[in-house]
């Protein structure tokens, strides 16, 4: 089971390495949105400090959603997905591998870049730490929930818009607690709630995604 799980992760990371432009697109999107916001909103330091965490979270959420279309589309088109469903290994485990790889390529770069972009908003150091912690807990949830949406809209024309409609309502709690953590007096409650959401998504999303894929391929 571990063989298949790590195999999927390694394969997807290798594919991402060889298709760097695809991965960089969503990272650049994140940077551009976060970098343009202070320019568009004016140089008022107090205001920038208040909206900073929210802006970064919105940018991260949209960047993560932008990458969802790629999650299964390629595997679906070239028949690899068929072979994944026919593997003796549980489909949920293989799907979990794909989600981990997606997070490593689309979530982790955002977390790493966030302190740099937080400078633009003049966020103090302790707030940056909390922001990074909330992104660390939150971006995997975005990947997990997004995978369900991506699987449900597989092979549907105009799937991109449909994914946004399906997934955005489920992203909202993550956005509220994630962005809230960085501006709250005591961020612990927000982070605990994010942790709870992550635990729930981890337990349910891979299996829900596997079922959705089975329906999509029928």
């Amino acid at each position: 089971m571990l063989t298949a799980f790590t195999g999927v992760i390694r394969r997807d990371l290798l594919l991402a390495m060889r298709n760097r432009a695809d991965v960089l697109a969503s990272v650049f999107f994140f940077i551009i949105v976060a970098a343009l916001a202070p320019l568009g909103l004016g140089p008022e330091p107090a205001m920038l400090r208040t909206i900073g965490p929210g802006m970064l979270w919105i940018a991260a959420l949209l960047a993560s959603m932008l990458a969802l279309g790629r999650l299964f589309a390629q595997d679906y088109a070239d028949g690899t997905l068929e072979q994944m469903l026919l593997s003796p290994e549980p489909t949920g485990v293989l799907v979990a591998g794909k989600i981990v790889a997606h997070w490593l390529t689309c979530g982790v770069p955002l977390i790493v870049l966030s302190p740099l972009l937080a400078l633009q908003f003049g966020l103090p150091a302790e707030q940056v730490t909390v922001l990074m912690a909330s992104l660390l807990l939150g971006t995997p949830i975005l990947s997990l929930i997004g995978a369900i949406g991506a699987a449900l809209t597989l092979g549907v024309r105009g799937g991109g818009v449909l994914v946004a409609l399906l997934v955005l309502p489920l992203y909202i709690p993550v956005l509220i607690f994630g962005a809230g953590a960085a501006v709250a007096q005591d961020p612990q409650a927000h982070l605990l709630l994010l942790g709870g959401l992550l635990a729930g998504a981890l337990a349910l999303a891979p299996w829900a995604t596997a079922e959705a894929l089975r329906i999509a391929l029928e």
Partner: protein
Amino acid sequence: MTLQALDLCCVRGERRLFKGLAFSLEAGQALRVRGANGSGKTSLLRTLAGLAQAESGEVRWRGRGIAACRDEYYSQMIYLGHAPAVKDELLAWENLVYAARLQGRIMARADAEQSLKALGLGRAAQLPARSLSQGQRKRLSLARLHGAEGEAAPLWILDEPFNALDQDAVAVLCAALDQHFARGGMLVYTTHQDLPLHPAQALEVNLDRAGGAASVATATASAADAATGAAAAAPKQAPC
């Protein structure tokens, strides 16, 4: 070791493709699915592989429904469909290695290269799959069968395995299939070509019968031999 289909009925959209399809495939036997384009050959194969649900009826492996013994069935069955499941960005040998890992098997690079060599892709093993021709991609996809020979995969379900292959590759594949039969392996396949295969017994399903009721027949030895002669004399390219 038996693959059984019980009273299978398949509906796609408004159309009923076939109904009342039943057969039983034993070790060493081959089942050829015949029918015109759009008659439901691929649907039948996907149903047998468990990728599609039959409207009614059941597919059984060793006497149990394939949904009930999913893990066991999928570790003993290989399905190769129309889509080659080949990643353009990966090298040919990497494709094989990662395909094996998806199945939970670890394959060494040397083994993968050996499999590719057997199918005439010796030098192409180091190339990205993107730069392979259509026929070479098909060979790469079929190399999975070679890799699985040592493993316990007695049932092969192949959808048009001979498409896009040149004569040499067809000969290699036929030899591999005959070896598979000799080991007691089973084969369900579709093709528009007549090929010299030598299973213990050759069964046929024809999906073209009016009314959608499919018939199963045992291809007689003489007919098979005649087909062998014809195929050897003039291999036909499948119209697709």
